[in-house]
Structures are given as structure tokens and as C-alpha cells.
């Protein structure tokens, strides 16, 4: 190991030892120092760059939870990257499972009256009225989600943050609502 790296490792190790003794300032310094290191480690390994910060935060929480397992005679970085690697694998597994379960909502991206809903003998005003009626069949929360996504054009992440839901739950809810709307419109003479 190069000298500079060893010195840095010793510094981190000393900070961790102080943290194990309850030194809050040392702990805060340690976590702030390792955050960019973890970020660069995860950045090259996570495809969805928007999620890097989430995973970094998971790793920081895991480090906090496992801090009693750090042994002073052990190199700190080996211990830290062990946890980072473990949480990274967890994240990749969870993402793979979610991707398998979910569908893409891209095909429902725009509920364009003129494209996807073709009125047979109706004017645009009537179509709009029918759509408003159709929206009313949805429960309040689902209606709000559809309006945010398809009328206001907000991203799934923004909606999830606003409603304090997970992104996958938002996607599933919107998908179900659109299905309901689709069948309602079909029953009312739209192809």
C-alpha cells in the first residue's frame, strides 16, 4: 500500500476508534470524509446515477449499525468497502427484482385525447367531458397521481416524493388507474 494511502487509512482508523469511544465530532468528520470516497466507489458500479446518493446513505446507515464490528487492528478501508460492497449487492438484487416485477409505463406516457382515444361521433368538448367523468370513477388519491403524471407532467420521482410513496408504488398505482380509465372509455364507445 502506498505511504499516502496508509496514512489516510490510519487517520480513518483513528477517527473510527474515537467514534467507538463515543466521540461525536470524530464520527461526523469520519462520515463526511468517507462520503465522497463511497460516492466515487458506487458511481462506477451503479447504472442509475440518480440512485447513487440513496445507496451512499444506505451504506452510511449500515456503517453506523455495524460500527461495533470494526476492530482497530483491521484496515479501516477494507472494513468500509466490505459494507459498501454488501449494500451495493443488496441494491442490485432489489433493483433486479423490482425490474422483473414491474412494467414500463412508457406506453402510457401521454394520454393524448386525439391519439389514443379516438371518438367516433363526438366533439373534442364531449371527449374532454367524458375524460373528466372517467377520472371521477377513480379514488381520490389515484386521481391525484394520474393528474400529476399525465396532466401536469411531473416525473415519477417527484410524485413519489410529494405523496411519500415509493417510485414503484406510484408506477403501479398509475398503471392500474390507466387500465380502469381505458376500460371505462371502451365501455362508453371509445376504441
Amino acid at each position, binding site marked *: 500500500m502506498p505511504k499516502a494511502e496508509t496514512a489516510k487509512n490510519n487517520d480513518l482508523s483513528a477517527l473510527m476508534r474515537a467514534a467507538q469511544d*463515543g466521540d461525536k465530532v470524530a*464520527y461526523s468528520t469520519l462520515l*463526511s470524509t468517507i462520503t465522497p470516497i463511497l460516492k466515487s466507489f458506487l458511481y462506477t458500479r451503479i447504472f442509475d446515477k440518480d440512485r447513487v*446518493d440513496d445507496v451512499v446513505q444506505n451504506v*452510511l*446507515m449500515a456503517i453506523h449499525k455495524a460500527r*461495533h464490528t470494526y*476492530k482497530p487492528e483491521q484496515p479501516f478501508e477494507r472494513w468500509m468497502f466490505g459494507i459498501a460492497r454488501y449494500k451495493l449487492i443488496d441494491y442490485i438484487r432489489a433493483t433486479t427484482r423490482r425490474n422483473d416485477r414491474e412494467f414500463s409505463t412508457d406506453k402510457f406516457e401521454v394520454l393524448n385525447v386525439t391519439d389514443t382515444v379516438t371518438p367516433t361521433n363526438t366533439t373534442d368538448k364531449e371527449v374532454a367531458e367524458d375524460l373528466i367523468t372517467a377520472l371521477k370513477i377513480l379514488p381520490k388519491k389515484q386521481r391525484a397521481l394520474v393528474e400529476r403524471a399525465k396532466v401536469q407532467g411531473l416525473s415519477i420521482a417527484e410524485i413519489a416524493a410529494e405523496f411519500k410513496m415509493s417510485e414503484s408504488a406510484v408506477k403501479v398505482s398509475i398503471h392500474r388507474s390507466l387500465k380502469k380509465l381505458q376500460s371505462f372509455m371502451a365501455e362508453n364507445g371509445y376504441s
Partner: protein
Amino acid sequence: MSKDKKNTDDLIKSLSDNLEPTKPIYSVKSCGLLASAFLLFIVVLMGYIGTNDAVLTRLLNPMFILEMLILAVSASMAMMAAFRLSVPDTKIRPLTVAFLLLPTIVLIALHSFNYLETSSTSLIEEMHNHDLFLHEITNLLLMISLPTALLFYVIGRAAPTFRLWTGYAIVLSTACFAAIALRMFCGMDDGAHLIIYHYLPVLGVSGLGVFIGAVFLRW
């Protein structure tokens, strides 16, 4: 400042504010204590259930003593491997691999040799004795259940990052301890019997430890 950066800073602040002093987790001493506790458990079990009549004669046989020593060392090595695996690391270190593989290799080698040298029946013939199989397996499972649960609890309090290998090491360790007791209860010394009813079940349940580890060592 971006929202994510702010969230991370908030998290660091909250974690630092809630920091409590901790003691570094267990040492080799606690590993030795647990191993001694398991050996004591076996002795108590033997006192309670009783051993077979041939045990005293067997204890005078150097090969039998060697076998028991190998099992005890294997169990302790597997336990040390489990303890080493319970501390986060980037990879499984060579010493841990040695602790895990040596017991397995030594057990297989010892009993293959024993079978080739002494066995009067073939493995296939021995396999047909289903009642005996059930009896030995039940004994083994009964003997490993309590120590395994205890070891999973102790190791689970740490932070194993290689859950499957840790699960394997834990069950291999307790199964090796149980194999010592099993040899005391069972009166048969035939090589084929030992392979089919003692050591294959030990390796089999250790394999199950992989799945148990995957589920119960999540953190």
C-alpha cells in the same frame, strides 16, 4: 446545494448526534468460550442419554482418539471461520478459506481412507438401512439445533457480509461437534456406516446452513 447532498449531510448529523460508545465485538476468547460450551453440552448430553458400551474400549484406540481430535479441531476451525466472516471485509481471506475447507477435506479424506481400509459392507448395501438413517439423522439434528441457534444469534449480532459462507461455517462447526457425540452414542465402527450415516449428513446439514445463513443473517 443539491437536495441529495443536503439529505446526506442531515443523515450524517443525525447519526453523529445519536452516537453511543460501543465496544468492539468479540475476540478469539469468546470463540474459545463458545467452543468449550458446546463441548460441555455434548458431555452433558452423553451423561443424560448415556453412551454405548463399547465407548470405553474405543477410547483406548489411538485411531478413535485421533478421529475425535480431528473432529474437535475441525469444529473449532469452522467456528473461527464463522467469527472471521462475521466482520465486514471486501473478500474472503485465504486463512478463512483454509479454516472452512480444511475440516471438510480432512473429514472426507479420513473417512474415505477408513472405508477403503476397514469396511466390510459396500456403501450401496449400507444405504438400504432406512430406519438406521432416520435414527442417526434425528439424533444429529437434535444435537445441533440448540448450538446452531445460539451461534446464529451470536454471529447475527455482528455484520456478516458473506452470509452464505457464514451459514455454512456455523452449521459445519456445530455438526462437527455433534458428530463427536454421535460417535459416542453409536456402537458401529464400520467405514461404510460412518460415511453414510455420520459424515454425509454432517456435510448435508452444513450445506443447508448456506440457505439458513442467506435468510437469518441478513442485516
